[in-house]
């Protein structure tokens, strides 16, 4: 399941190299030109945030998706990595140590690795509930420590430093957001590449084996505990890298970055994207960051919507967004993907209308309940209307119901089209 790339041994060595290098080259190119298209500082900050989240989510998925270990306290590795990186930065600032800034995330990574070694020494003995609960407990303990040990963690104010005091690299002093972007993009590419390679190493393969069947792995000569331990510390390392990049980007680390909320968020992101696939967390990180940022700009209820999306994902597509995309692989292989486009487009419109209609109902209900009494005027989808008027309610409810009914009516068509696009492959899965 994790093995998303087709078997590569079929092609010759040259073809293999080129074919497997293509996606990376494309990604690098895209990362290079993105800031040319979106040059606003805020967009760059958003992209930086996304890149950091991607690394963190992939590191987290090393545990959850590949190692089968559910952690509720993974933010502490990122947090500690970040705090350590900030201290290194201040050290550079105070003593003028000759450290080029691009190397800073490495310090965060090693801090994460070290902490993971300590915690992993006792938490990876067992998987399952025991591991999950230890991670929850340790997460809470370290988060609490971050408020108690003010000299190191800086308390709720956090620790901060100035990145511009490092050694200039080819004259770049990292004064501007875009310069930081390129640094983060480079680290993103490198980390993703390394984590991808990791899945293809003996350790990466055995992590999957231990996840699926720890006992069998033991009888193949591998200690399930050590395999888990190594997965754990590598995950800690990359989480630390993410922390180091975070420190670089924001130049501040607060105790909030270690909290249970952060750990929960990364779990949501990974699951949303699809923990069974390497690209899952990447998709999850991008979609989640966009969803929260964009929704947050337009509605007070963004958290409600994100929560709803999440619960619906768990219920109806537990393999995440990546799983949803991968469902189309057989059709793609059959070359019949095109036959799905028209039916999809047809159903897209009522689904969109129904979703927007439901959201509108929520917004109107919220307005009726929480707007100051007497304030009946609300603005939604570029229309201003009276939130208390039965006509408005009638229209919205009517349109929504209609859209839902249309969607239901179209479901058989979609099923037929789906069946049609997948027919030759009927036997498998």
């Amino acid at each position, binding site marked *: 399941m994790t093995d998303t790339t087709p078997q590569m041994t079929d092609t010759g060595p040259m073809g293999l190299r080129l074919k497997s290098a293509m996606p990376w080259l494309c990604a690098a190119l895209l990362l290079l030109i993105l800031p040319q298209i979106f040059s606003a500082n805020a967009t760059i900050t958003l992209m930086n945030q996304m890149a950091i989240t991607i690394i963190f989510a992939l590191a987290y998925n090393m545990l959850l998706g590949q190692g089968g270990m559910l952690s509720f306290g993974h933010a502490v590795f990122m947090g500690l990595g970040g705090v350590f990186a900030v201290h290194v930065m201040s050290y550079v600032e105070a003593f003028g140590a000759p450290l080029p800034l691009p190397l800073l995330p490495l310090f965060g990574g090693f801090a994460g690795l070290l902490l993971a070694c300590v915690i992993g020494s006792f938490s990876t003995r067992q998987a399952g509930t025991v591991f999950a609960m230890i991670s929850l*407990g340790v997460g*809470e303990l370290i988060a609490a420590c971050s408020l108690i040990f003010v000299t190191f963690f800086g308390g709720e104010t956090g620790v901060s430093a100035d990145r511009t005091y490092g050694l200039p690299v080819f004259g770049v002093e990292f004064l501007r957001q875009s310069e930081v972007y390129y640094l983060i993009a480079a680290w993103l590419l490198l980390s993703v590449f390394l984590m991808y390679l990791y899945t293809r190493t003996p350790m990466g393969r055995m992590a999957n084996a231990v996840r699926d069947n720890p006992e069998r792995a033991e009888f193949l000569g591998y200690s399930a505990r050590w395999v888990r331990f190594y997965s754990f510390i590598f995950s800690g390392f990359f989480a630390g890298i993410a922390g180091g990049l975070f420190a670089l980007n924001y130049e501040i680390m607060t105790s909030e970055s270690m909290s249970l909320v952060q750990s929960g968020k990364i779990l949501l992101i990974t699951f949303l994207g699809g923990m069974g696939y390497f690209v899952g967390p990447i998709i999850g990180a991008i979609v989640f960051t966009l969803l929260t940022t964009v929704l947050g700009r337009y509605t007070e209820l963004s958290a409600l919507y994100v929560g709803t999306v999440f619960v619906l994902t768990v*219920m109806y597509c537990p393999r995440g967004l990546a799983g949803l995309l991968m469902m189309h692989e057989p059709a793609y292989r059959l070359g019949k993907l095109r036959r799905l486009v028209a039916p999809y487009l047809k159903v897209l419109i009522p689904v969109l209308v129904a979703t927007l209609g439901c959201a509108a109902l929520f917004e109107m209900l919220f307005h009726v*309940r929480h707007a100051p009494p007497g304030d009946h005027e609300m603005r939604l989808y570029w229309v201003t209307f009276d939130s208390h008027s039965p006509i408005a309610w009638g229209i919205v409810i009517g349109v929504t119901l209609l859209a839902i009914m249309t969607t239901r009516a179209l479901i058989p068509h979609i099923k037929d089209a789906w069946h049609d696009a997948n027919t030759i492959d009927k036997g498998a899965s």
Partner: protein
Amino acid sequence: MDLLLVNLIDGLVTGLLLFMLSAGLTLIFSMMGVLNFAHASFYMLGAYFGYQISLYMGFWMALVCAPVIVGFLGAVVERYGLRRVHQHGHVAELIFTFGLALLIEEAVQFFWGKSQVPFMPPQALDFALFSIAGNAVPAYKVFMIFVAIAIFAGLLFVLTKTRIGMIIQAALSFPRTVEALGHNVPLIFMCVFGVGTALAAVAGVIAGPVLGTFPGMAFALGSIVFVTIVVGGLGSLSGALYASLLIGWITTFAASYDVGLADILNAIGVDQPLDMRNSPWRDFWSITLSQVGPILPYLLMVLTLIFRPHGLFRKGGL
């Protein structure tokens, strides 16, 4: 010494309150294998429904009606949510309840707003029953103790003395066999989930007036309840009771006695450096028991899991 007695009572109240939550959670866990992250959210729903009902029909009706409504909601969640997710395994179930907890918190804010709501104890119990060395013990707390004990007794009675209790106990250990015997296991699951959440709601109604009814109340309690059932041994009702009381007393006593780490270290002969201002260890020396009180349960849990993974109060293996 007087304070000790008062603290024992307070710790008992906290512990029994925790027990009302952990009893339902542990029942649900041992039957369905689901660690229900949303359990404390049902506790919060209990408090909010209790508040809403008490506005119209008074506290006593709220105490009866809110748990029924929440229990029904819980059953619906099990039937239409959890059962669907069940086929995808435990991680998916856990994550589902995790998402549900978020959603309930948002929903509560949606309907009742973000501020604290003024949920008051009933007038009839709003007086000090007795006082020990100037410390009043409100009648309401004594009432809380009685409710908790009544629930424990009731639960014990149902589980050990009634037919349905026997079936539940059997379904705990051998769900397949019970199903083969013609019992409707999914229905039993649904009922247990409903009853478990209703118990949480009872706790919510009676704790809401004293601990405050606000959207963050579930989050504040959620992980502590987990800690309780893990420390008690997953799936053990008596373990949950002992662990609840233990944690109730630990947090109470930690908050009321000012023992610093420095005192302990001095007592065992480690001297505190004189000038602490620039020492990186200064925070370490200034740690006090009340400062770390609320995180002691987590420490207890981690230690329990390392040394006795099956819980503090369980003998032998699973």
